[in-house]
């Protein structure tokens, strides 16, 4: 798959950082504003699709390889599972957050960024997982 014309490349070069930034912001503020891990991950994945269509497969494979994306996908899924196992390790049930008193960093006052316990960690893991999954699927379809 080859890239597109110079006009498309210039516009995508302008737009893509803003799209990446919005995706990361939506994923990280999932516990405060509308959004969440999957939505932010979908935004990141569609940014990857835009870059893939505009610059071609060879450019994207040079920047973000297939193997790297695949291991990133596994990393996101493993992060969700490990944060879930954290609750089981510290004496609660699976998929719960064990540090439930106010003094601990990640479960403090609402409306702060580091506030609502495991939601932030789950959102980061889900965003990585979904974005890398989209990237892998688009690579597979672009190679044919």
């Amino acid at each position, binding site marked *: 798959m080859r890239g597109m014309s110079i006009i498309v490349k210039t516009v995508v070069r302008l737009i893509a950082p803003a799209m990446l930034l919005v995706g990361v912001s939506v994923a990280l503020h999932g516990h405060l504003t509308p959004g*969440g891990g*999957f939505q932010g991950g979908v935004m990141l994945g569609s940014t990857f699709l835009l870059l893939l269509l505009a610059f071609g497969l060879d450019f994207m494979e040079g920047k973000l390889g297939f193997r790297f994306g695949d291991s990133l996908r596994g990393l996101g899924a493993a992060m969700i599972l490990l944060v879930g196992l954290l609750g089981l390790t510290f004496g609660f049930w699976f998929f719960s957050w064990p540090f439930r008193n106010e003094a601990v960093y990640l479960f403090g006052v609402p*409306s702060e960024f580091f506030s609502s316990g495991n939601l932030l960690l789950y959102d980061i893991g889900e965003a990585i997982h979904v974005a890398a999954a989209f990237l892998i*699927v688009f690579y597979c*379809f672009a190679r*044919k």
Partner: protein
Amino acid sequence: MNFPYAVSMVIILLGLYCILRKRNLIKIILGMGVLADGVNLFFISLGYRAGGISPVLTEERIEHFSAFTAAAVDPLPQALVLTAIVINMSIAAFALALAVKIYQRFGTLDMRKIRRLHG
């Protein structure tokens, strides 16, 4: 009259018609997407409340918390629909991959011809 429910059921029927009657595999996958969108729309409209606001807090909504809980729409169908959207996306990706492989092997996307080839 429950107009949104009827509209979402019509969308479900359109997707069902597209799955049952079309012969192109890509159109069948599109019909699956339309059917799932109808189901999601039905769920979301079940959780609506008259004059409702979104179930996300802000600073001013915390100050009037009882008014917020009296006016917020149901967040449970939204969460379920989010899960359903992810699963539909997975199904669409896998089905499109199968369609690509079928086209590479048989050279056609017509269901009847593929059924006749049986290889």
